[in-house]
């Protein structure tokens, strides 16, 4: 079975500063990895996904993530954040070997300070 850890429950950062949101996973098999964003009072939206190929994945709104198999990590980064990036961010993992369900991490709340 898979599990997902997001080490930081809250991350405050000043506007235009860089940010990294950490995600680590555990799995005995190959995985697909996702980052979702949830704006206040809304459902989750897909930011980016890693299925195969290049380990650096680019998503919407200037975000990117790097898959590191040896460290079982999939950290999310943005070089310069905006106020509009304030939201909850969820890392998720799914098992590539079965049509099983996605497992979500507990989420990281990003607060961008003007």
């Amino acid at each position, binding site marked *: 079975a898979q599990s*997902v850890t997001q080490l930081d*429950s809250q991350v405050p950062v000043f506007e235009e500063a860089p940010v990294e949101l950490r995600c680590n996973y555990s799995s005995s098999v190959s995985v*697909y990895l*996702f980052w*979702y964003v949830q704006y206040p*009072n*809304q*459902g*989750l*939206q*897909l930011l980016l*996904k890693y*299925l195969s190929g290049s380990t650096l994945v680019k998503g919407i709104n200037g975000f990117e993530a790097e898959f590191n198999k040896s460290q079982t990590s999939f950290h999310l980064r943005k070089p310069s954040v905006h106020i509009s990036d304030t939201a909850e961010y*969820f890392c998720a993992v*799914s*098992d*590539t070997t*079965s*049509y*099983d*369900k*996605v497992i*979500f*991490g*507990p*989420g990281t709340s990003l607060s961008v300070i003007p």
Partner: protein
Amino acid sequence: IAGITQAPTSQILAAGRRMTLRCTQDMRHNAMYWYRQDLGLGLRLIHYSNTAGTTGKGEVPDGYSVSRANTDDFPLTLASAVPSQTSVYFCASSDSFSPNSPLHFGNGTRLTVT
């Protein structure tokens, strides 16, 4: 705009009462899901349906039931609500019941059981 519609947006429910949360999608997605979101726990899968006419149990199915009579609708029923079912409920869909198929979410139903 294509997507997922959930109703009601919020509800306060007395313990022991029956409640059905509605979910409709217009994307013709084959797979649909119900998640509950609780602070610090991320999203947990309640039930899923990989295609019309079939359903399956997720991580936390007890106290909930679902049906999938057609492609578009996937209602979630609480037969006799309990306070531990206080949560935000999200309906989601994906093009296929595949581990690499991203999820599309509705805006959620906030349920309080008193």
